């Protein structure tokens, strides 16, 4: 049984569940305590010892059902003793003996060994499945079963018929089992390879090329990257740390008690978290881009960043409150639909937007804040009012402009990027998750 468990662990690992050696030992010990008799308890036990997140739980459920297919636990092998003729049995191979004796563990061991001998790594196409089933059935141990069936058919003694029937039935079940195992292997290996490649690819995908399906993959990659950034920066950004005894402060505080010291004082350390203002153009041309920027920013833990977000189209308005009350994706959808916010979805007017920002929010921008503007700077021939952008730049620490268009396009047509970039501390092309990731990393570092 230990062997079977080990191969189950391997399957889980290949499906992306991280199982340490320690955990597998715990699981083995736990199984010893619980026993195998009850399928449900058996499953709970493995789950509780190995599966540590809710996402992994789903993978576990699937793999478990596939791997420990129900017939392993139900005793459907008939008790055969009344028909068995020991002399005949002696001539049969080990696998048939196991079947006739109802020794399922023995049978499974043979099957496992056969499965192990077949290299599934080359299984690339689903059409190859039949070939691989054959390969397994031809392995030493299992091959004997077919020979035995042929041999028994020639004998003529009471019970031989039933023996053959039982063997045939088991053979059919075996093929079924191997079939499901092979397709599972196919899914496992191909899933795994796909996933790794997919992730790297997604990071470089241009935002404008994203369809609905990829968008959800993208969000997943964003979550992962956000977590990485968090891990990287959280240590430095602990906002309030209670420290050790502060001797100087203690002496000062206690001087009023005739020099008797009994009220200790501690060192406190306060680290400011960076405050960023994200101004997003939410018009159609930049929608995807702003979507992922917002998602990224709000995926970062609140302890790391203080974020205020603004939507920009024909005018500008604050949308931070939408994120306060809704989770990321929902909030972004709401903003794009213009729900609950005071925005007019006419032609983009950066000049007007900066004017709104200056009048309503500029006073709250501190000299330590960072302002990020996302937009293509296509102003529809309106007045760019770049003086206003300069005022914003003067007020904040860094002004970053992220433009989804390639740099050569800046200034072409109705783009006023050339005008604006004079007042930006950083002006960057930004149209993939990798770009976003780099920018945010930069902000957190500063």
């Amino acid at each position, binding site marked *: 049984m230990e062997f079977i468990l080990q191969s189950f662990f391997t399957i889980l690992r290949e499906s992306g569940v991280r199982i340490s050696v320690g955990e597998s030992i715990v699981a083995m010990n736990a199984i010893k305590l619980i026993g195998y008799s009850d399928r449900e308890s058996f499953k709970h036990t493995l789950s509780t010892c190995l599966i540590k997140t809710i996402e992994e739980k789903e993978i576990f459920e699937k793999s478990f059902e596939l791997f420990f297919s129900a017939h392993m636990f139900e005793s459907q092998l008939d008790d055969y003793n009344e028909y068995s003729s020991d002399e005949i049995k002696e001539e049969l191979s080990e696998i048939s003996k196991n079947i006739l004796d109802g020794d399922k563990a023995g049978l499974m061991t043979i099957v496992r060994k056969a499965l192990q001998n077949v290299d599934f790594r080359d299984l690339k196409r689903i059409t190859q499945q039949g070939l691989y089933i054959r390969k397994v059935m031809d392995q030493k141990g299992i091959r004997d079963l077919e020979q035995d069936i042929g041999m028994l058919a020639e004998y003529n003694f009471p019970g031989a018929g039933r023996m053959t029937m039982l063997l045939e039935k088991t053979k059919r079940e075996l093929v079924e089992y191997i079939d499901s195992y092979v397709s599972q292997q196919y899914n496992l290996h191909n899933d795994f390879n796909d996933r790794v490649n997919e992730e790297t690819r997604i990071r470089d995908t241009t935002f404008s090329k994203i369809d609905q399906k990829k968008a959800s993959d993208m969000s997943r990659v964003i979550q992962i990257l956000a977590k990485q950034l968090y891990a990287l920066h959280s*240590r430095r950004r602990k906002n*309030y740390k209670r420290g050790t005894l502060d001797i100087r402060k203690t002496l000062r505080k206690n001087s009023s008690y005739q020099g008797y010291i009994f009220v200790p004082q501690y060192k406190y350390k306060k680290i400011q978290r960076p405050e960023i203002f994200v101004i997003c153009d939410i018009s159609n041309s930049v929608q995807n881009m702003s979507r992922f920027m917002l998602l990224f920013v709000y995926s970062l833990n609140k302890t790391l960043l203080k974020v205020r977000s603004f939507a920009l189209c024909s005018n500008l308005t604050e949308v931070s409150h939408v994120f306060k009350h809704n989770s990321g994706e929902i909030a972004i959808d709401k903003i794009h639909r213009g729900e609950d916010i005071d925005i007019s979805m006419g032609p983009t007017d950066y000049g007007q937007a900066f004017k709104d920002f200056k009048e309503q929010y500029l006073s709250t921008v501190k000299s330590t804040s960072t302002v990020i503007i996302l937009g293509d700077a296509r102003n529809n021939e309106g007045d760019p009012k770049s003086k206003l952008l300069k005022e914003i730049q003067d007020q904040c620490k860094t002004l970053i402009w992220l433009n989804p268009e390639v740099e050569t396009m800046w200034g072409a047509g109705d783009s006023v990027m050339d005008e604006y970039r004079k007042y930006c501390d950083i002006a960057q092309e930004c149209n993939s998750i990798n770009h976003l990731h780099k920018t945010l990393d930069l902000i957190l570092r500063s």
Partner: protein
Amino acid sequence: MNNERFISVEEIMESYKTESYICSKSIATTLFLAYNLGKPILVEGPVGVGKTELAKTTAKYLGSDLIRLQCYEGLDESKALYEWKYGKQLLYTQILKDSLDKIINDAGNLTEAMDRLHQHEDVFFSPNFLEPRPLLKALQMENRSVLLIDEVDKADEEFEAFLLEILSDFQVSIPEIGTIGAKSRPFVFLTSNNTREISDALRRRCLHLYIPFPEAELESDIIQVKVPEITESLKTQLVSFIQQVRKLEIKKAPSIGETIDWAKVLLLLHIDKLNPEIVRETLSVILKFQEDVATLESKLEDITLKAVKETEV
């Protein structure tokens, strides 16, 4: 310690029931394993499914003390593990000035005086001046205690790292004194509401238990135990109603605790059958956001009728 505890999964389910805690088989299995393997349990799940209650019940069942450590942002060693009683140390140095004088008075020179002091210095860094916080307290208990580390996701990640030593070896290192091992291994529960991902290192050291919202049947059993006076039909209607509400897209789904409160409220009002009016009036017991109430409003009649129908069949 009673040796007859935790002998089988079924026994746990039975005994917890007598302590008014209905646990499903997966919960019981995890408890059984955690106890027998000496592993901590990491309990996750939505708010109000009885994560904290599980630890409390376990303490009651084992007849041992429950030591609770509530986590929050900024929690650190000095609040969780131990702290020197600085005030006491300072005060004692003042009070003991005379005796200190005596020790060094007849010393010939500075070196000798220092030597003499050195012989006594550890006095101030001894267990007498140690203020044990929950974690250390749990390790020092003579009998096996139940240690509840509540909402571990609220604490900083550094704190998690610091928990690792305690959870895997059940010992703590205090620089001035040395390593203190556990007198008895506490039975550890960690709970998390998933506001932040718990690190893999911590997860690896624990058994994992996910408690979802209960199925209708289980919830019905729980209400039966907690509010035994309730009538069968009202209970069925109540559970059916709540189960339907949880399926709606609302901000905060009603927890078991709220279901129980609602049952009590209805009992107090002498209601024996749900109707839309009563539901509307008492809705504030189960829904805590105005938006949720608004969401439910349009479907309220349907849901109530469906719930009532359950008992008529």
